[in-house]
């Protein structure tokens, strides 16, 4: 497998396809068309010229072709797998590279030869809740390039999307489409979105040696602050996703700038500071099932006194979510090591927050942030999200003393 080329254009192309795929499989269009579109999306993503989707019939353990492209007659085409092979495949639950992974390819037994006759190179099995629903097969890339690690991850995510579609179709045909079931499936779809975005957030963080896990921490911190502020579950989910993606624009910023230890030149600074706008441009093209994600990303470096960037917005003009993000983003930056300085202690970070209270940070956000930290230290929260991620131990006496006399905090 080749090295991963994660260019901004590729990421954008793939994110768009995932969003479209998500839309397609939840659309009321007829099943055959949805399956066909899904297959085309997969093939187009990798520039494969031959591909097929097979549905698994657990009764006779046969995979039956339900859509194909680039292959001549597929009517009645299919193959069988042994029960043991099915079990192993469900357990493995990753795409199988017929060329590069002989151990797993061998699971297919005689079906391997049949699939290879249809030019199959990679198989992505469709599994929902340990149930095998089918398989997508695609051939070599038209371009002659090899599949990368990233391709396999993307294929796996797309296969999850499509599994969801097949699953809901199966459920519908079994007349089990009760409201609750559908709701559960919708949740499942969101889960898939979330997993995808997690993978991309990891890619963003990977670019920055010093901020490993920054996006995940910002996401976790945003979530608890929003919850403390009484946001609805839907809004909370939105800011959680936003937190994971807030630095996505950094994908377009040169790695050497992000990891530079010495002060940035004005050009480098301009490039780095373009990341909220680039992020906004990427994310505004994607239809998310949650509101406000592009704007929260765009405005996460605004300051309530109007001296931030890119729009120099003042307090109420900044989306509340972006104000939450601005605080927890800065807090995480302060409490972790940076190329140009070691991390600050919790006390030093809170001194900074106090210093910039009402200037950089919104008091309406600082208050719930502090109260959450206090609750976590006092053990009043079941699953603390901030305190365990800090690299120091906080006890209630110290924290109370630190937060004493904080403006607006009783």
């Amino acid at each position, binding site marked *: 497998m080749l090295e991963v080329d994660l*260019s901004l*254009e*590729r990421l954008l*192309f793939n994110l*768009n*396809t995932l969003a*479209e795929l998500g839309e397609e499989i939840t659309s009321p269009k007829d099943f055959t*068309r949805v399956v*066909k*579109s899904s297959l*085309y*999306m*997969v*093939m*187009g*993503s*990798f*520039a*494969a*010229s031959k591909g097929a989707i097979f549905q698994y019939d657990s009764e006779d353990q046969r995979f039956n072709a339900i859509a194909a*492209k*680039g292959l001549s007659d597929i009517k009645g085409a299919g193959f069988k797998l042994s029960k043991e092979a099915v079990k192993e495949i469900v357990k493995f639950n990753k795409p199988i590279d017929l060329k590069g992974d002989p151990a797993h390819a061998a699971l297919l037994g005689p079906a391997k030869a049949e699939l290879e006759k249809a030019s199959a190179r990679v198989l992505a099995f469709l599994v929902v809740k340990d149930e095998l629903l089918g398989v997508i097969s695609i051939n070599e*890339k*038209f*371009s*002659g*390039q090899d599949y990368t690690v990233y391709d396999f991850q993307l294929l796996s995510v797309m296969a999850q999307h499509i599994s969801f579609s097949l699953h809901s179709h199966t459920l519908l045909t079994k007349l089990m489409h009760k409201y609750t079931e559908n709701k559960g499936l919708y949740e499942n779809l969101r889960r898939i979105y979330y997993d995808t975005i997690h993978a991309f957030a990891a890619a963003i963080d990977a670019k920055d040696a010093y901020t490993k896990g920054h996006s995940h921490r910002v996401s976790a911190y945003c979530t608890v602050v929003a919850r403390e502020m009484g946001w609805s579950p839907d809004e909370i989910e939105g800011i959680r996703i936003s937190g994971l993606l807030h630095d996505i624009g950094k994908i377009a910023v040169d790695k050497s700038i992000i990891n530079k230890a010495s002060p940035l030149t004005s050009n480098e600074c301009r490039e780095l500071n373009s990341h909220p706008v680039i992020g906004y441009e990427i994310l505004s093209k994607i239809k998310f099932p949650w509101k406000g994600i592009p704007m929260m990303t765009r405005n996460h470096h605004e300051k309530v006194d109007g001296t931030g960037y890119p729009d120099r917005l003042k307090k109420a003009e900044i989306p509340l979510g972006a104000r939450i993000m601005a605080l927890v983003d800065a807090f995480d930056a302060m409490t972790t090591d940076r190329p140009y300085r070691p991390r600050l202690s919790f006390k030093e970070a809170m001194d900074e927050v106090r210093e910039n209270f009402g200037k950089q940070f919104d008091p309406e956000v600082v208050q719930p942030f502090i109260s959450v930290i206090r609750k976590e230290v006092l053990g009043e929260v079941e699953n603390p999200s901030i305190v365990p991620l800090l690299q120091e131990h906080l006890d209630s006496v110290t924290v109370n003393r630190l937060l004493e006399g904080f403006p607006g905090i009783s």
Partner: protein
Amino acid sequence: MIRKHNFKEIGGSVILYPNNYINDIEGEKLEEMCEAFLKKGVKKIVIDFSSTDLINSIGISILIGIIEKVKERKGAILFSGLKKVNHDIFNIVGLTRHIPVYKTEEEAVSDLKWEDHAAV
């Protein structure tokens, strides 16, 4: 909604002008058109994308389908008039490695003529 793709025949070749979007299964109409031309004996196909704003992954798979069909019949296929966003996508999926891309339809056509002579 039925969207017709325009075309222009010049000698033994054809220039196709797809719609502004090639982003769903309807795009297969383009593939069917190409097939019909190939059956008629057309050997060279230019696809001019100058009025195409958006090609998504479905569009890519349809275009690959067309390319494969042209190749099967030993024909030639050329692209022209690609907007940057579409050119980027063609680059990402590696299409530009194998299909000649021209700035304008005229450039593609003149090259096509050259190939015509070469084929004789």
